């Protein structure tokens, strides 16, 4: 187990390095640097040269990459071209909203999909199952930003339960979370639908296994068979799926931030792409890649912990 995990970890770090190279090189080879857009048309040659030297733009690419990478791992993400402040400060102040959104979405997915999947599987073929199956198919087909728009329409305009005006964390945790509920729901619903479907199929698959018959033959009740045997085994693929889904949740959060005007990483990422403020873009991309890689690693770890069969292979 240890060896396989170590190999996996090595692979993931390699992936991360690859992403960092791509992110860095991609923005270094594109024609036109930020000098023009930051200093304006009237900048003198000296001003431009000074700016380029200050930003390290006059060094060769590989040296800039090395400097950037070594600084990056110590938490120094460089200087934003557009906003005259360190990227790390910019990113970390903005990351709060995105993290709250992603965490809330993740919790919602778990809270929504586990009971629904369980009920659908228990009442297979029944009315509840059919309704859930149709609902999941439809919900899966709604892009999350459209889901956000729909929720906004329903809750803000029709029901008037929701004021579409961002409430930052400093105005109180309760109010902040209340605002975040709707965007989190928008991110969570399509993913929940997939989770329900996976869980339902997984439970039904386990219920058809021979070992279930063994459990019944020992005098287990239906509930106890579900709790002690089925759920644990059926959860293995679901837990892996959920851990892997965190990357998608982050990506979804970034899009949803646009819908609900949440000043998070997504907003700054999009605006920085527009202004070619690439230290910011690079930092966010590499950080998000880090999250994704970490989650994949976690998924792998959980899988190994939950399924003893992996061990022997």
């Amino acid at each position: 187990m240890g060896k396989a995990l170590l190999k996996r970890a090595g692979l993931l770090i390699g992936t991360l390095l690859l992403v960092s190279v791509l992110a860095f090189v991609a923005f270094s080879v594109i024609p036109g640097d930020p000098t023009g857009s930051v200093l304006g048309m009237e900048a003198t040659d000296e001003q431009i040269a000074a700016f380029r030297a200050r930003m390290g733009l006059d060094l060769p690419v590989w040296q800039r990459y090395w400097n950037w990478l070594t600084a990056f791992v110590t938490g120094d993400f460089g200087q934003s071209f557009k906003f005259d402040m360190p990227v790390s400060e910019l990113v970390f102040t903005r990351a709060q909203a995105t993290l709250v959104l992603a965490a809330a979405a993740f919790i919602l997915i778990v809270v929504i999909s586990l009971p629904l999947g369980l009920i659908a599987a228990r009442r297979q073929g029944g009315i509840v199952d059919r309704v859930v199956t149709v609902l999941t198919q439809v919900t899966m087909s709604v892009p999350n930003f459209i889901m956000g728009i729909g929720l906004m329409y329903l809750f803000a305009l029709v029901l008037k339960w929701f004021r579409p005006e961002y409430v930052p964390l400093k105005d109180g945790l309760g109010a902040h979370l209340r605002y975040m509920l709707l965007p989190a729901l928008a991110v969570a619903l399509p993913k929940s639908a997939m989770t329900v479907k996976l869980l339902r199929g997984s439970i039904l698959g386990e219920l058809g296994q021979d070992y279930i018959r063994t459990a019944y033959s020992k005098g287990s009740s239906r509930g106890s068979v579900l709790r002690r045997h089925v759920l644990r085994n059926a959860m293995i693929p679901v837990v892996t799926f959920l851990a892997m889904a965190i990357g998608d949740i982050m990506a979804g959060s970034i899009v949803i931030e646009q819908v609900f005007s949440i000043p998070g990483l997504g907003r700054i990422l999009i605006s920085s792409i527009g202004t070619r403020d690439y230290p910011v873009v690079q930092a966010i991309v590499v950080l998000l890649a880090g999250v994704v890689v970490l989650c994949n690693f976690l998924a792998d770890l959980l899988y190994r912990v939950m399924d003893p069969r992996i061990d022997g292979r």
Partner: protein
Amino acid sequence: MMLRVQDLSVVFRDRAGEEPFTAVDRFCLTMDRGEVVGVVGESGSGKSMTAHALMGLIQRPRAEVTGSAVFEGTDLLALSPEEMRRYQGRDLSIVFQEPMTSLNPTMRIGKQVEESLRIHEKLSRAERRDRALDAMALAGLPEPESVYRQYPHQLSGGMRQRVMIASALVLRPRLLIADEPTTALDVTIQAQILETLKDINRKEGTAILFISHDLGVVKALCRRVVVMKQGKIVESGAVDDVFYHPQEEYTKLLIASRPARKKLKGGRQDG
């Protein structure tokens, strides 16, 4: 008389417009305490279905189970599923044909052997463990302590079948139904498992209803045998009589086909 089965029938009537399928047709059997009785038939003859019906493992809405099976004064077939649960695993238990898939792959062996104890008795963890190890030794598992902590995939088919036997025996039931317990195993391991079952019958006095498609195997273990074909009993009696002086064409065919284990015509496949 420990068990008297009379006119046990299992009929599937699953969908409207479809002809009902009779898997077991008026099956009768009596068993004394500590007796070993064999049931033989080709695959699809209804012998496994009979075992499942006796164990209360046939889900009622899909199939209709009629007749009576009086076990120590109680008609098992008349019990509700909840009442039947008190007998399952305690007074009667079953070992299935498929040792590779009949164990939960993510649960340690010890926990699975103990499961009946956990359901039927209130014992401390240590007591449960002792009795599980005891049953595992009885089932002929070498080094029960180390197997106790292992997972099914770490064991061979024969070992897994011994685990199944151990978990069936952990509460010392009066009747053990062995549903083709050796079919999926190698010949040498098959012989060892049969030996173990014999030992258990001798030492613990457990009655065994031994189901097989192999009359030779039944002959080695049982004194009495019932031959089934397409859900019906075609012949029954002392095993030597049936083996050496078969009355029915079908029984002769079963004996003749033994080495090659050929499927007989008219057999309905059900796995």
